[in-house]
């Protein structure tokens, strides 16, 4: 009896000890942590408990963690926030999880796939089933991004219905999108801005300026958009002419638009990123506020332009890695009023983490032409944690090893 009690007491003691000792579920050890919101760039361990970041500190001892994952030599960043993606409505839409999560992207913003008529279906059929955090910019067109004639149908651009849908779905909808408006005049842009004013959210504009559009990008950015509104496809010169073709300089009115608070987004896509434009602009210091992909079927297949790919392009054009991470996490989160909830590794925040590898070799990075630039470095995602759970693990490093002798 005595023996039994002693054993039981010992067991209980042991259980208590191990419970208090293993306070963390996962520790990512030894990576270079870049967390711009907290001014961190250096070797750190990151601990996760449940679905939250529990600690970011120089060293966490073995007994404190149930699982230790060695990420020495890797770069650990907040889960990437892709401000411009397509997972509903648009014909080139992708499914969120199998393209976002392998890229380290834990939050995507669907840019206008749904409108106020189709958002409920979007929520029910895609958002509810995705491990990726899917947020949305609601298209000013009620039918969403479903091609012509719908996208130029002014009668279906209803600021009141759009803002009402936004207010009903504040957990998911973070702004408005207007895209591909092919009729002359300002109806699409002005109605989107009007809806944005009512719902107090930003508008992202992808404008189709044609010779008979009777509007210019200059007027749009200086007179029609508000500070905080987002001009996407910034390095696409076919429609917006960021670079003056005769002088090679960034247009002065683009710089003026930035001064008045209009934000510039990469929105790489299949046709919206050109090496000559991006390299001239970045050389002159005209950097993107946000780095995003506009990822859809053809851009995935031809350019492979997911977040690490677009970030690698910025690296090749001379941007600093810390700055690239800032514009892929903190900045997009801020623009949609989700900072510091998203985009940081602060203790207590949701555990969305991307582990990236800086690879050395020869890589072809392709633009819209498509033309390639050869690079000697690129980023690739090796591990993605979403809401505390390992959702992508390229090399299986969070799992136990198997051996032939087993």
């Amino acid at each position, binding site marked *: 009896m005595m023996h039994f009690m002693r054993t039981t007491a010992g067991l209980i003691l042991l259980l208590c000890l191990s419970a208090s000792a293993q306070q963390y579920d996962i520790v990512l050890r030894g990576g270079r942590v870049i967390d711009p919101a907290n001014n961190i760039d250096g070797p750190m361990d990151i601990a996760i408990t449940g679905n939250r970041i529990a600690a970011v500190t120089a060293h966490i001892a073995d007994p404190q963690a149930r699982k230790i994952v060695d990420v020495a030599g890797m770069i650990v960043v907040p889960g990437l926030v892709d401000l411009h993606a397509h997972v509903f409505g648009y014909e080139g839409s992708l499914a969120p999880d199998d393209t976002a999560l392998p890229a380290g992207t834990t939050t995507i913003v669907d840019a206008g796939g749904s409108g106020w008529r189709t958002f409920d279906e979007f929520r029910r059929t895609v958002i509810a089933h995705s491990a990726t955090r899917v947020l949305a910019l609601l298209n000013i067109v009620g039918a969403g991004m479903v091609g012509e004639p719908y996208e130029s149908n002014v009668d279906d651009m209803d600021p009141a219905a759009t803002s009402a849908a936004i207010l009903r779905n504040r957990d998911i909808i973070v702004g408005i999108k207007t895209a591909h408006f092919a009729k002359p005049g300002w109806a699409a842009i002005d109605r989107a801005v009007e809806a944005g004013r009512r719902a107090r959210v930003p508008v992202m504009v992808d404008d189709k300026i044609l010779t008979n559009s009777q509007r210019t990008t200059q007027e749009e950015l200086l007179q029609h958009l508000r500070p905080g509104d987002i001009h996407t496809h910034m390095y696409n010169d076919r429609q917006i002419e960021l670079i003056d073709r005769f002088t090679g300089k960034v247009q002065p009115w683009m710089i003026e638009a930035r001064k008045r608070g209009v934000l510039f987004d990469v929105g790489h896509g299949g046709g919206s990123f050109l090496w000559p434009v991006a390299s001239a602009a970045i050389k002159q210091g005209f950097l993107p506020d946000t780095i995003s992909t506009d990822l859809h079927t053809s851009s*995935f297949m031809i350019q492979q332009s997911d977040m690490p790919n677009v970030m690698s392009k910025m690296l090749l054009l001379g941007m600093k890695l810390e700055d690239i991470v800032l514009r892929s996490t903190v900045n997009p989160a801020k623009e949609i009023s989700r900072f510091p909830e998203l985009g940081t590794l602060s203790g207590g925040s949701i555990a969305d983490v991307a582990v990236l590898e800086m690879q050395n070799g020869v890589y072809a990075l392709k633009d819209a032409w498509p033309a390639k630039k*050869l690079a000697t470095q690129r980023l690739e995602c090796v591990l993605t944690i979403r809401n505390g759970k390992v959702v992508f693990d*390229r090399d299986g490093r969070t*799992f136990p090893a198997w051996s032939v002798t087993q």
Partner: protein
Amino acid sequence: MKRLFAGLLFASAALSAQQIYDVLLKNGRVIDPANRRESQVLDVAIAGNRIVRVAPNLQASHAHAVIDVSGYIVAPGLIDINARFASTLKPDYNTLPYGVTTVVDAGSATCDTFADFKKEVIDHAKVRLLAILSPTNAECASRVARQNPETIVSVAAPDAGPLLFSRKSLPDTISSHMDWNSILVPRANLSTAMSIFLNLGMTPEQVIERVTFNAARAIKHTELGTLSEGAPADLAILEIQEGKFGFLDSALTRLDATRRFRCLLTIRNGVIVWDSDGLSITDTLKAGPYTNFK
């Protein structure tokens, strides 16, 4: 004499300008088990959607586009005989980037749902997407199969089983068994499956045989999985990378590995649908002025 010489010059110029091939893959290491080609250095010429020549030293001037694939493996487009595209898993970008040009959906559709599956999934896919119907009603299944002979793969009868269900130590076919739930963890794509068997001791030729020639026989489509002249121009350009890799099995244990297959270029029906290393894409340094961009 002068005129004859000029005539000859003209004739040879005309001859060399005859670009009878659309794409010429130069100096690849061809692994084509159907034709017993085991890592021979050969050129592969494509015209339209067919393979037209496989031989050494084909004339580069006879081709519109010449792609130097020296150092890489040239294989028939890979065949994955076991995938499920139900739910959110979409076909093209989970197959073509791995060199898979033919994929068999094993059981997402029953004979009742096949028409919808065809309209929503198969008809939108660039990858050749075949289907095995989920067995519910035998009479209905055989009727739908008769109506869609191009698409529906007849399940091998049990007595024809050895091809699919081998008792030998090596599998006859290698497939991914990918679905929406396995595509991320354990990364169930065909490259992963092939890399696992490579690291377990199969030769590259043995692995490729099981995802081309053997897989084609298993689904009774012997016109596929081969680089025979006249065959559909489905090809995969692969390399074997050396390094430190890890692959998971379905029980989520990790095989520590030193080699892996990687696909650089995929050609489906004569069209380049995947070119991760930009082998067929112009360098910006040679692209000319920006105004050339259309």
